C-alpha cells in the first residue's frame, strides 16, 4: 500500500518536474533583482527575474555558459565543449563594472595569452544582452522604459526640469 502511494507521489513529482523548466530546478533563484550599478543618474532597475524565466525558459539565453544548456555556439564549443555550469552565475561575477580602468587594462596587458580579450564590461553586457533580445522579441528598448531618470540624471541630460528654455518642445523621449 505504502509502496503504491510512494510510487504515486514519485510519479506526480516527476510529472511536476517535467512540466517545469527543468534546468532551473533545485536552485534558490531570486524572483526579483535590483540592478543598481547606474544608480547615480537613474532609478534602480527592478528586474523581474521570475517573469523572464517563465518567458525565456532556457537560463543559458542570458547566462550563456554559466548555467542552463551547455554551450552550442561553434566558436565557444572549440574550448568549452565539456565546460560545466559555474559557481558564479551573476553577470557582475565576470563582467567588470570598470572595464577600462588603468588596472583593468594593465591586467589585460599582463594576460596577453588570454583568449577573451574582448569581454564586455558589466554595463555593456547588460545592455547588449537585454536590448539585443528585446529588439527581437518586442520588449522595451527605449532608455527611460527601464531607466527613469533621477533629478541628477535630468540635470545631466539637460532634460525635464533642466531642459533648455527655448526647447522646440516637439518629440520627447530617450533614444527611440
Amino acid at each position, binding site marked *: 500500500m505504502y509502496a503504491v502511494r510512494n510510487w504515486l507521489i514519485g510519479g506526480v513529482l516527476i510529472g511536476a518536474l517535467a512540466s517545469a523548466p527543468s534546468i532551473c530546478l533545485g536552485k534558490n533563484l531570486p524572483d526579483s533583482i535590483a540592478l543598481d550599478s547606474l544608480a547615480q543618474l537613474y532609478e534602480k532597475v527592478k528586474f523581474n527575474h521570475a517573469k523572464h524565466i517563465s518567458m525565456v525558459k532556457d537560463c543559458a539565453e542570458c547566462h550563456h555558459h554559466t548555467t542552463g544548456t551547455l554551450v552550442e555556439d561553434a566558436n565557444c564549443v572549440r574550448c568549452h565543449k565539456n565546460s560545466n555550469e559555474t559557481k558564479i552565475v551573476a553577470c557582475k561575477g565576470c563582467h567588470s563594472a570598470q572595464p577600462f580602468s588603468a588596472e583593468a587594462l594593465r591586467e589585460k596587458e599582463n594576460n596577453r595569452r588570454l583568449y577573451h580579450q574582448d569581454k564586455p564590461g558589466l554595463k*555593456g553586457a547588460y545592455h547588449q544582452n537585454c536590448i539585443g533580445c528585446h529588439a527581437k522579441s518586442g520588449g522595451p528598448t527605449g532608455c527611460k522604459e527601464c531607466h527613469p531618470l533621477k533629478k541628477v540624471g535630468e540635470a545631466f541630460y539637460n532634460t525635464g526640469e533642466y531642459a533648455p528654455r527655448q526647447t522646440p518642445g516637439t518629440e520627447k523621449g530617450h533614444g527611440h
Partner: protein
Amino acid sequence: MKRRDFLKACMICGAATTLGVTPKKSWGAGSFEGYPDGMGVLVDLTRCVGCRSCEAACNKEQKLPTPDRPFDDPSVFHEKRRPTERAYTVVNKYEPKDGGSPVYRKIQCNHCNEPACLTSCFVNAYTKTKEGAVVYNSKVCVGCRNCMIACPFNVPGYSYSSAFNPVVKKCIFCYETRLKNGKPPACVEICPQEVLTFGHRRELIKIGHERIRETPDKYVDHIYGEKEVGGTGWLYLSSVPFDQVGFDATLGNDPIISNVKEFLGTVPMVLSIWPALFTGFHLLSTRNKNHSDHGHDHSEQEDHKP
C-alpha cells in the same frame, strides 16, 4: 673665376643636387605609426542605439555651455550635425541603403597619428601626446583656422561667438581630466552599449580584426582609421559600407603631411644650393658680357645708323 673653375663648380653643384634627392626620399618614406603606448577607442557602429549619452557626458566633462535641445531629444537626428565649439562630439543617424535598421555614428576628433591640424598650425598650438591625444594650447592660438581647413574630418570647431579672442575648439580625448591619469574619456565611460572600447591602439586593431573574423557576416571587412591618413587613434567598425554612414572613403592611407613633405624637404636644398648656382650663372653671364663688350658696342653704334 676661370671658365673651367666655374664649370667644375657647376658639376659639383649638380652632383650635390642629385645626392640631395636621397635624403629627401627618406623624408617621404618615413611615416610615424603613432606612439607605442598610444591609446585609442574602437567604435563599433553596430552597437550604437543613438541614446546621445556620450554627448551629455562630454558636455559635463568639458564644462560646455547648455545645449539648445535636451540630450535625450531625438529630433536632432533630422539633420546631419558636426562638432562645434559648444559640442565636441555629436551623434548622427543614417538610414542604410539596403533599408536595414538605422546606423548611428558618433563624430569627434579622431586623434590622428600624424595630425594635419598640428602640421598646419604655424604657432605650434597643437601637440600629439604620448598617450595618443591631439591637444592644443588656446593661449597661443591666434584663430587663423588653418587647422579647420587642414583637418580631413572637418572636426575643429571655432568660437565664432567670441568677438575678441576667437579660438579653435575640439575634442581633446579628455586629456587634462582623464587620459593623463590613465582614465578613459567621459563618453567611453557613459556609453551603455559599450560601443566605445578604450585601450591601447595596437590592441584595439587586433580586437577589431578578431570581431570581424568571429562574425564576418556582421561587419564590413575593414577598420576605418587603421590606415586612413596614416592611422587614427579612434577606429571604426561598421555593418554597412563606410561611405554610407558619413565617412570619407576617398582619403587614402598617406598622412596629410605627405602632400607637402617632399616639397618641404626641398626647401633647405633650394635655400643652400640656389644662391651658389645662380651666383655662378650670374658670374658666367657677366664674364661673357665683358668679353663681347666691344662687339656689342659696335653693333649698338651700327643700330643708330639711319
